[in-house]
């Protein structure tokens, strides 16, 4: 696999995850438990859209053929999306959203810290900026998971349930294929097995403080890298892409 091609796919992997999670968090707009939290979640959503845009632009520049950040975001179909499966899972209740945020932002934080050492200048620059945002997302979700885990019986039960439900999607975040092989050999991307070790440490420090337990899940669901999604992505794309599909090229 050529390096350029691998970088293109790697961009999509991160950008797609950010776009879909951003869309999910935006669904909380006007539905947050308190006004402050409503804003916090939509702030994070906008951070993620911003990160996605940077990488879509990079990907579009590699692809050529008049591709743009918008055409990549709005005109690909479900099977062409290679986001991590965890981000497309529905918001559920507030505890569920916070647990998903914890699991994903701790992955992102560790990934970005490694990408900051990339031989690719574009990835390096991106990661340097994005890691600050990811650290804040991790802080925000960690605080909430600890509060909810230590809170009432009800909040503890819901938070533990969220971890049990979401855990089956976590292995998917660390799946690698020929794209990773190529980029690891060029010193452009990290080995996700290493990221996984850092990730489990940061997640466990939070769950331990929250009094929550990591489930033993023999059943694992993977497929993000190959564009094989859970039933939820199609529904998100319907909403996300509607405008560009109904009015091609519309802008404001």
């Amino acid at each position: 696999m050529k390096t350029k091609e691998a970088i293109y796919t790697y961009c999509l992997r991160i950008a797609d995850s950010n776009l879909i999670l951003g869309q999910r968090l935006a669904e909380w707009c006007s539905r947050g438990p308190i006004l402050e939290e409503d804003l916090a979640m939509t702030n994070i959503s906008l951070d993620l859209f911003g990160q996605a845009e940077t990488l879509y632009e990079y990907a579009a520049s590699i692809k050529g053929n008049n591709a743009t950040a918008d055409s990549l975001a709005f005109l690909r179909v479900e099977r062409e999306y290679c986001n991590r499966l965890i981000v497309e899972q529905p918001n559920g209740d507030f505890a569920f959203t916070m647990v998903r945020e914890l699991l994903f932002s701790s992955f992102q934080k560790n990934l970005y810290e490694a990408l900051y050492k990339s031989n690719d200048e574009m990835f390096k620059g991106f990661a340097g900026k994005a890691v600050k945002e990811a650290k804040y997302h991790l802080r925000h979700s960690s605080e909430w998971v600890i509060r909810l885990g230590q809170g009432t019986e009800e909040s503890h039960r819901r938070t533990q349930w969220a971890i049990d439900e979401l855990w089956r999607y976590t292995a998917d975040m660390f799946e690698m294929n020929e794209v990773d092989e190529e980029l690891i050999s060029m010193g452009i991307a990290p080995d996700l097995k290493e990221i996984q070790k850092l990730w489990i440490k940061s997640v466990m420090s939070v769950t331990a403080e929250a009094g929550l337990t990591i489930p033993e899940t023999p059943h694992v669901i993977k497929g993000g890298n190959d564009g094989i999604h859970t039933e939820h992505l199609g529904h998100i794309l319907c909403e996300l892409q509607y405008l560009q599909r109904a009015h091609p090229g519309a802008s404001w």
Partner: protein
Amino acid sequence: MAENNSQFPQWEVFIQVKNGSPYEHAGSIHASDKKMALQNARDIYTRRNEGRALWVVQTDNIVATTRDDEEEFFDPSEDKIYRTPNFYKMPAGTTNL
């Protein structure tokens, strides 16, 4: 202050624009604890690059004057013009005093 159990306690938010400048009141937020108060203040009042540092303090901890205090607290200073240094000659060339 009326107790409203559906809301977290209220906190006042102060922002410092840059190192060395005074913290200025920006508004208020609700939060259940100190950490959440700082984060909520950050999310609501510094999204547009308004500052580099934050103070939050629970509103109940602020002691304030009331309208009834106005007369005896502030009226007496109205006619003490000699307390403002308006009568000194500025040295020539001084611009930043």
